[in-house]
């Protein structure tokens, strides 16, 4: 399959299927809460509604206006770099390090947009966003580097190939577990929805965003969910890999759904942590990730 075709496929998955996962998760939460819950198409309806709503701008300025566009753009680029049931379609454009930094480009734009809105709640949210990046990204980096050390390459395709030929290893298991333990924070879900924290800082960085720009942010977060989940399942659990491409895609979609359902479950039964508690937790998870790296360095 050509790179262009694969990239457009990922783009379509990201734009059209990502909200569906969100809908399923909402339904799951409703079931756990003994509610009826919204229909699973609700995220689509939310987005459509927001696109037509009035765009109220408190900050003004190009940075404020461009930030959501750049965040969604970066997330879509990350989606193209992520393998969704096969090789990453844009593998020749960037490896895992590029993937990590494209994701952090989105964080940068969230922070800049929040600053530009001039709202103190947004500043607090931006500060928290930055701290989440600082405490979570080391785990992502360490687990990705573990994969790189095992495979001898940092290209996503190379790592997946290595996994498929060598099977599960101790170090990759540790790296995968660490990545999964940090996933909740990467998705901005409870107990790590510290950045938005509706009940204390009123959506934080997004407080001044409304209408279509808020829709872009929401879209970007739906996409972030599946991008991270696809990354997790295709790097750390690529098995079983089938030759038939549509089947491989279906299998990884199923794996992503499982991952997201687990995160939804965790979200339901946990209250929000404070930022310092979260950093504490992350520093412990980092040890798991570093253990994986040590195992990789000694070759198990």
């Amino acid at each position, binding site marked *: 399959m050509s790179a262009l075709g694969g990239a457009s496929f990922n783009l379509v998955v990201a734009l059209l299927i990502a909200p569906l996962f969100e809908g399923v998760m909402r339904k799951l939460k409703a079931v756990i809460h003994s509610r009826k819950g919204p229909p699973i198409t609700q995220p689509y309806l939310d987005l*459509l509604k927001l*696109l037509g709503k*009035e*765009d*109220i*701008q*408190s*900050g*003004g*300025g190009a*940075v404020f206006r461009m930030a959501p*566009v*750049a965040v*969604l*753009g970066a997330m*879509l*680029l990350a989606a*193209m770099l992520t393998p969704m049931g096969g090789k990453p379609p*844009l593998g*020749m*454009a*960037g*490896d895992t*390090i*590029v993937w*990590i*930094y*494209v994701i952090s*480009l989105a964080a*940068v734009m969230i*922070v*800049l947009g929040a*600053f530009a*809105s*001039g709202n*103190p709640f947004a*500043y*607090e949210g*931006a*500060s928290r966003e*930055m*701290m989440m990046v*600082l405490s979570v*990204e*080391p785990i992502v*980096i*360490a687990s990705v*580097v573990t994969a790189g*050390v095992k495979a*001898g*390459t*940092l*290209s996503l395709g*190379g790592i997946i190939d290595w996994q498929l030929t060598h099977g599960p290893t101790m170090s990759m298991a540790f790296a995968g577990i660490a990545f999964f333990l940090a996933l909740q924070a990467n998705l901005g879900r409870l107990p790590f929805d510290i950045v938005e924290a509706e009940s204390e800082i009123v959506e934080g960085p997004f407080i001044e965003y409304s*209408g*279509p*720009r808020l*829709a*872009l942010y929401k879209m970007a977060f739906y996409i972030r969910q599946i991008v991270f989940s696809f990354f997790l399942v295709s790097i750390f659990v690529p098995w079983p890999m089938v030759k038939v491409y549509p089947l491989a895609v279906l299998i990884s979609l199923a794996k992503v759904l499982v991952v997201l359902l687990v995160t939804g479950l965790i979200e339901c039964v946990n209250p929000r942590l404070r930022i310092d508690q979260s950093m504490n937790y992350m520093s412990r998870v980092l040890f798991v990730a570093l253990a994986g*790296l040590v195992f990789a360095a000694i070759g198990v």
Partner: protein
Amino acid sequence: MASVSPEQLLLSAFGLFTVGALVSIGGRSWRRTGYTSVAFAAAASVALWILAAGTIVRGETHTRAYLGLGAIGASLTFRIDRLSSVFLLVVPFIGLAALLYSVEYMNHVHRNASARRYYPFALLMLASITGVITTSNLLYFFVFWELMTLTSWALVWFDREDETKVRAAWQYFVATHVAAACMLVAILVIYTRSGSFAFADVSSTVGAMLRTSPALVHVVIALFVIGFATKAGMFPLGGWLPQAYPAAPSPASAAFAGSMTKLGIYGIVRVLFEFFRVQELTTVWGGIIATLGALSIFVGTLTALREDDAKRVLSYHIIGQIGYMLLGVGTAAFFLRSVPALAAVALIAGLYHVVNHACYKSLLFLNVGAAEYQTGTRDLNKMGGLGALMPTTMAAAIIASLSIAGIPPFSGFVSKWLIYQSTIQGGLRVPLFLVFGLVAMFISLVTLASFMKLIGAMFLGKLSTAGKTVTGDVPISMRIPQLVLSAACVLLGVAPILPLLLLYKVAQDVLGSTFVSGYAALFGSNPSGITLRLGNEIVGAWNPAYALAALAICALLAYAISRSAHAPARETASWYGGEEYADDVVRFRAHGFVLPFKQAFAKVYPSVRLPKIQTIGFMQKVLNLDTWLYGPIVNAGSRLTDGLSRTHSGIPHVYMLWQVIGIAVVFAVLFILLK
């Protein structure tokens, strides 16, 4: 230009700088002197660029010997090779941008001072930096180095009314001279062994030295490294830097950050790869430098997070960024013999970071200078919202910040990406390098946090009280240097092939015959990006052209989605929880940004504070001859005379006893001698 020899180009550049300096001494008005200096510097820069371009194409050039001191085997010779041509391309570029920026900046900010305290020194500094990177004689290398230190010291010492700045200048003077003394000792040791100061003779002596006195060789390298690393600002030798750089006028700080600091890296590359390229030395010292580099990255950048003075933030980041360069160069030296291709990638990464850092750090100093020009303050807690009034400066500052934080597709990302790749590949062979790689990647995010704070506090949000008087952006002559430097940051990021082709040739020259990989075998044959290969394995890929094209499509798509329903837009005031506050009352100060993280690191690492060199107290002690010279001599003298007078007790028996003992001693001596 074929008729002009490289030698003439170099000499005319020196001449132009010197004449420019002499002319600017006579200058009265700030502005006219400024433009005269810019003209001379521009002419000299063009000469140096032609020289550098010629060198890249043709290879190295040696010049005749000037100012020969035959008696001690020293003569002023120049050798321009590809390594120096990299610096010859960058230094005049930064210098020229900083000088052009100076014209209006100095005229406005330092109107009451004298222009002759600034421009002559700036031009002479550029001349001496040119000397440092082109001379091939150790003695003259030292002379140029010292000239550079003195001229830059004069610039740090520019503002003589401010007591703290005078102290900072003093500290700079002492720290750099202690370092220079170390270097001088190293040079003299080499001279005593080889009898010559020429670069070429040094490397040939090292082999013999290593056989006769291996410890001495290590001491010499250590002294060189101390000398260069102090200038570069490496932890723990860079404590003077965050005091001294903010003390100089902003364009001078920019010139220091872009040119002078980098010469420490130049020196270390010369020392490790040219003078002492023996396997056991490069491995040991490569490891040491990589370790110190990683430490420097960690400590320098985390300390920067605590600062709220914009220029001090930037200065601490120099310490951190120098760490990246040292990590690249150290990794290269470590793997010089064992994995030459990896050494090449690491060296290219380190030098690439030198070029990138020169552009974005100078640019950041110019941005901060522009904000200072408009508001009169550098305190991030007092600034805010300048972006609406100074859009060019803000755009340049955002580009520079994303570059230094290593966010794609800007320049810092490519060099950092190469550094991550080479440390991780090195980590496959020696696991310690994995730690360095992780530190480099993690600290890149800390850098990001620091610069988000800077951008947010200076340019975004609501206008602060300090900015109420600002009417617009800085004058055009201050905007052009910022635009040019930000263009360089973007270009170095999106078209890595240009610097890589040049640095690949440099790596070929520096690494010599051990390194045989072709360019395509290392970086792939696609001109729009890098497909990094070591051996036959693809180890990583970064193609800015593809990624940017995809990002552009994605962003356009996102924009189209947001406009798809033609939602109406309206501007309102910010929502402060339903209360009406003045913007300044509810402003989120820069100090509070990522505060829990800062506090967490304060707990984990309470001693991260860079040791402050107590140079002033030390100098006072040194200069107070009473305490250490005259006092002890007088005391010793009086103790001696006391002792002597005690023998004169006035008792005859004691005198006779002395005589008997004396005679016995005389006889004993005679007996031994005449036996």
